[in-house]
C-alpha cells in the first residue's frame, strides 16, 4: 500500500470503530451528554454556516506559529546541547527537569507575560513542541556515525558546512517522528488555549457549544478537531517518507 492509501485505510478504520463505540455508548447510556452519531452528523451542515473553516484556519495559524518558533529555538539549542560540553552540562539538567511539567499549567504565566490573545496561546503550543524538538535533535546527533564527521572534516568542511551536510539531514527522521507526536498533543491542547481571549479556533468552537449545552454542536466540533489532527499527522508522515527516500 502506498502512503496515501494507507492513511485513507487507517482513517476509514478509525472512523468506523470510533462511530461504533459512540453509537453503543449512546444506546447503552441514554444520557443527553452523548447524543447519537446521526444527530451529530445532521449538525455537520451547520458547521459551514458557523464559519468552521475560519475556526480551523486560526487554530492552524497558532499551531503553525508555535511550530516555527519551536524549530527556530529547539534545533539550535539541541545542536548546542550535543556539541558544546558546557552548554550540554548546563542545559541538560534544566531540560530534563522542566520536561515533565504539564505545559498547560503554565498558562497563567503565559497569559501574564504575553496577554490574553494569540501570544500566550502560541507560547503554550511552543512549550509543548520545543522540548520534543530539542531532545530529538540532541539524541539524533549523539547517534551520528563518527565516520560521517571523519570524511567531511578531512575534506575541509567548516562547522556550518558540517551542520548543513551531516547534522541536519541526520537528525531529520527523528525530528519528524517527534513532531508527529507533539503536534497531535498541540492540537489537543487547543481546547485549553482557545478557551479564553478569542472567539475563533477549533478549541473555542467546542467550548462555546458546550457552554450553550449544544452537545450535538460540541461533538461536531470534536469531529472536526480529530479530522484536522489526523490530517496533520498523516501529512507529516507522508512528508517525512518523501524526505528520506534514502533510508
Amino acid at each position, binding site marked *: 500500500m502506498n502512503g496515501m492509501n494507507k492513511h485513507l485505510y487507517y482513517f476509514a478504520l478509525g472512523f468506523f470503530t470510533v462511530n461504533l463505540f459512540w453509537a453503543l455508548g449512546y444506546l447503552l447510556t441514554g444520557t443527553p451528554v452523548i447524543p447519537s452519531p446521526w444527530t451529530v452528523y445532521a449538525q455537520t451542515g451547520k458547521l459551514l454556516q458557523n464559519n468552521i473553516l475560519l475556526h480551523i484556519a486560526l487554530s492552524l495559524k497558532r499551531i503553525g506559529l508555535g511550530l516555527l518558533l519551536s524549530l527556530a529555538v529547539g534545533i539550535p539549542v539541541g545542536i548546542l546541547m550535543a556539541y558544546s560540553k558546557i552548554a550540554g552540562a548546563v542545559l541538560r539538567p534544566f531540560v530534563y527537569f522542566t520536561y515533565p511539567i504539564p505545559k498547560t499549567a503554565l498558562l497563567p504565566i503565559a497569559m501574564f507575560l504575553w496577554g490574553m490573545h494569540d501570544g500566550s496561546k502560541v507560547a503554550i503550543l511552543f512549550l509543548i513542541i520545543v522540548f520534543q524538538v530539542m531532545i530529538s535533535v540532541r539524541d539524533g546527533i549523539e547517534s551520528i556515525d563518527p565516520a560521517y564527521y*571523519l570524511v567531511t572534516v578531512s575534506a*575541509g568542511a*567548516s562547522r556550518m558546512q558540517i551542520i548543513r551536510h551531516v547534522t541536519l539531514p541526520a537528525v*531529520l527522521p527523528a525530528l519528524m517522528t517527534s513532531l508527529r507526536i507533539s503536534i497531535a498533543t498541540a492540537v489537543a491542547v487547543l481546547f485549553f488555549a482557545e478557551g479564553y481571549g478569542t472567539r475563533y479556533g477549533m478549541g473555542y468552537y467546542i467550548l462555546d457549544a458546550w457552554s450553550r449545552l449544544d452537545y450535538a454542536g460540541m461533538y461536531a466540533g470534536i469531529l472536526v478537531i480529530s479530522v484536522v489532527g489526523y490530517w496533520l499527522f498523516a501529512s507529516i508522515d507522508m512528508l517525512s517518507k518523501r524526505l528520506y527516500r534514502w533510508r
Partner: protein
Amino acid sequence: MLLIENLSVAYPARQGAAAVLKALSLSIPEGEVLAVLGPSGCGKTTLIHTLAGVVHSQSGRVVLERDGRQTPLNPKTHAIAVIPQNCGLLPWKTVRQNCLLPARLRGQDIGKAQAAFEQICEALKIGHLKDSYPNHISGGQLRRAAMARAFLQNPDVLLMDEPFTALDEITRYEAWDLFLSTWRQQRAVTILVTHSLEEALYLGREIAVMGQTGGAILSRHENPFFSQLQPDAPEYAALKKRLLHSLAPAQEAAL
C-alpha cells in the same frame, strides 16, 4: 613525504578503554603505501582520526614535505581523503552527491569535478549507480563509491581504515585490484591500517607492525610482494611468519 614525529594522542577522560598513541613516529615516502598492521584496539583508528584532523594531538607534529618545504598537515590546506571502515558515505546523499561533496566543501569548480566523476565511475564500474543512495547498493559497490570519492579529491594524503575487510573474499580481491589500478594513476601518500595480514601484504609497499599499547611501532618491513595475490614463493610464507611473530610474540610462543 609524510612525516609523523613524536605524535601523542590521549582522549579526555571518557568511559571505556580509549586507545592512546604515545610518541609515535613514522615516515611515508612520496608515492608509497604504508600498511599499518596491528591488533584491534591498538590505536590504528586513532592514528587515522588524528591525521584526518578530527582528533587533536597533545604533542608531536605531522608534516607533509614537498620539494624540501615542510607544511603541517591540515585538512584546510591539504587534500586529505579518507576511506573509513564502513566507507562513510552519507546515506542521505546519492553516490554522485557524496563524491562531489568534497569539491563543494572546498569551493572548487563543480563542472570540472562532474567531468572527473563521470570518468572515475566508468573506471570503477559504478556508472549505473551514480544516482543511487548508499543504503540501496551492495558492500562491494559501496567500497568502489568510497574509492571514487577519495580519488576524485586528488588527495595529497589518502587514509584507509580497513575498508575492505568486511567484504567476502572474491569481492575483496576485486576491490583490491580496482583500488591499486586507480591508485597507481595518482600515487598519493597512503596509509592503510588493517588487522589483515593478507591485506597488508597485497596493498602495502611497506608494512609497519603496531603493538598492543601506546601505538608503538614494533617493526617495519619492506614488502616485495606488493600487489601480488597469494604468491607461491617460500619468501612470502617467511615474511608472513615474521609479521605474525612481530604482531603476537607471546601467543606464538604459547603455541
